[in-house]
């Protein structure tokens, strides 16, 4: 079953057009990697899905519902959980408050978040702005999971983190995949991203130019669309 269906998405920032026709599907239990060089429209696509940017043309359906007219909080309540780029926690709330502020009933509880990221448990009473970058990222993932999303969107979740912390985040992503969590993920570390992805979608200049499985991703395609 297709959770998320994006067709012909065109998004504008004022007079400048950022997306020129993005097509994307995420099915139930699937991990989809959204790829492309910097500035090709990955974050804009995610922002459009989450209702943070209103799109001009095309369609976005989540669980069969057109999310175009919905404000972002309603889209989130439908089951879209976003971990935004740049580990954006609520800095002046404690770890515990960050996690419970948005909690909704479901399988994901504080206990499960603790099991996924044991580091967070040790920091429950600390303000988010006193955490390391890696811990903030874990908190951002934990906070999104506490909303019990049907689809988790990770935007550059490992960017700027120490290698050992990246490994923890990737281990968590693999755990989530094993539990059947649907994930749309943007990340530059192809060596980690490709083994976890079921399908890849490549954007070039705001348009979907290639879709396929990681096995179908040839060096030629990689060089053409993902190389520096």
């Amino acid at each position, binding site marked *: 079953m297709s959770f998320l269906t994006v067709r012909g998405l065109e998004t504008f920032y004022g007079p400048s057009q950022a997306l020129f026709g993005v097509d994307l599907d995420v099915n139930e239990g699937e991990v989809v990697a959204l790829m492309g060089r910097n500035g090709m429209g990955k974050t804009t696509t995610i922002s459009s899905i989450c209702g943070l940017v209103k799109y001009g043309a095309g369609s976005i359906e989540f669980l069969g519902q057109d999310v175009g007219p919905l404000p972002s909080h309603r889209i989130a*309540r439908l089951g879209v959980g976003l971990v935004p780029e740049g580990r954006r926690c609520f800095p002046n709330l404690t770890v515990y408050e960050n996690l419970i502020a*948005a909690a909704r009933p479901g399988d994901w509880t504080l206990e499960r978040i603790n099991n996924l990221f044991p580091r967070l448990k040790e920091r429950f009473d600390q303000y988010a702005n006193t955490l390391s970058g890696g811990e903030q990222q874990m908190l951002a993932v934990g906070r999104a999971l506490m909303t019990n999303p049907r689809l988790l969107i990770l935007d550059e979740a490992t960017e700027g983190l120490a290698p050992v912390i990246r490994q923890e985040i990737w281990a968590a992503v693999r755990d989530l995949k094993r539990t059947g969590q649907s994930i749309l993920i943007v990340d530059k570390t192809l060596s980690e991203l490709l083994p976890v992805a079921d399908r890849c979608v490549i954007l070039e200049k705001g348009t979907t130019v290639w879709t396929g499985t990681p096995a179908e991703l040839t060096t030629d395609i990689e060089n053409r669309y993902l190389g520096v």
Partner: protein
Amino acid sequence: MVRLSKENGLNCVLALALLAAPFVATALDEPFYITLATRVAILAIAGVGLNLALGLGGLVSFGHAAFFGLGGYAAGILASHALNYEPILSSPFELNGTTQMLVIWFVALLVSGLAALLIGFFSLRTSGVYFIMITLAFAQMIYYFAISWPAYGGEDGLSIYVRNVLPGVNTMDPISFFMIAFVLLMLVILFSSMIKNSRFGAALQAARQNDERLATVGIHPFGIRLTTFVISAMITALSGALFADLNRFVSPDMLAWHMSGEIMVFVILGGVGRLFGPVVGAALFILIESVFGGISEYWMFYLGLVLLGVVLYARGGVIGFLAGKEKHD
């Protein structure tokens, strides 16, 4: 187990000091100070109300006098009709006034809650200086309405000849009336603490930090702000109803913009967002008013100096200065 942090310890001392004040005043045969302590307790309730909106939600409302005054007028109007044996409404059905405090408080909460729902619905679409101005504008509208409404005294205000009644309590006895105000103050502080430590409180503080981020986790910031604004207004109205009973008089002054300013001063002096901040703020305000007010009619000058000192050198207010930076329990 509850940890007794420095702030919790200070809060206990403050509560006990306020509770002891009227008894010490009685022992020293200075009954005037019982009234002062009662004023502190009542005005602190208004501060606790504003502190929810301002301290937790970051909503700088400059119109809380509207709710304070509505609470006062609820008490005044209901009591004056009951005492004069004149029904408020005679058709299509008869609606009589009352001197029962519990009914008056309920009406004060209801009226202010509805007013806050309406005012908040429009005001909360703005933020920053626009929010300050629009809340002020609404309060001034109600103020001028009260002035121009002769049925309830207009500019001269409205007297309540006898203090309203609460079953089992002699409300005319100053200490008993103080205890009513004190118990209500403790209850609203407890309620405020429960909100602060709840999921709702966390979301409210998150909304203050970043609207968009909160929306992406499925919470509509406008909804929780409006709810907070209404609760905050209702607490302030309760204070207004008690204030009317304390003075046995209601006037448009309770609705005036300087009353909004005073409530805000209680919060800032004591410490924005601190649980007992409004108690310290109201106490300090009334202390300065009664001490310097007896010396000079320009006592507000000295209040200004203290406020300046707090804003410049003690950003967390008196509580912040004494108990340090806020810590979560």
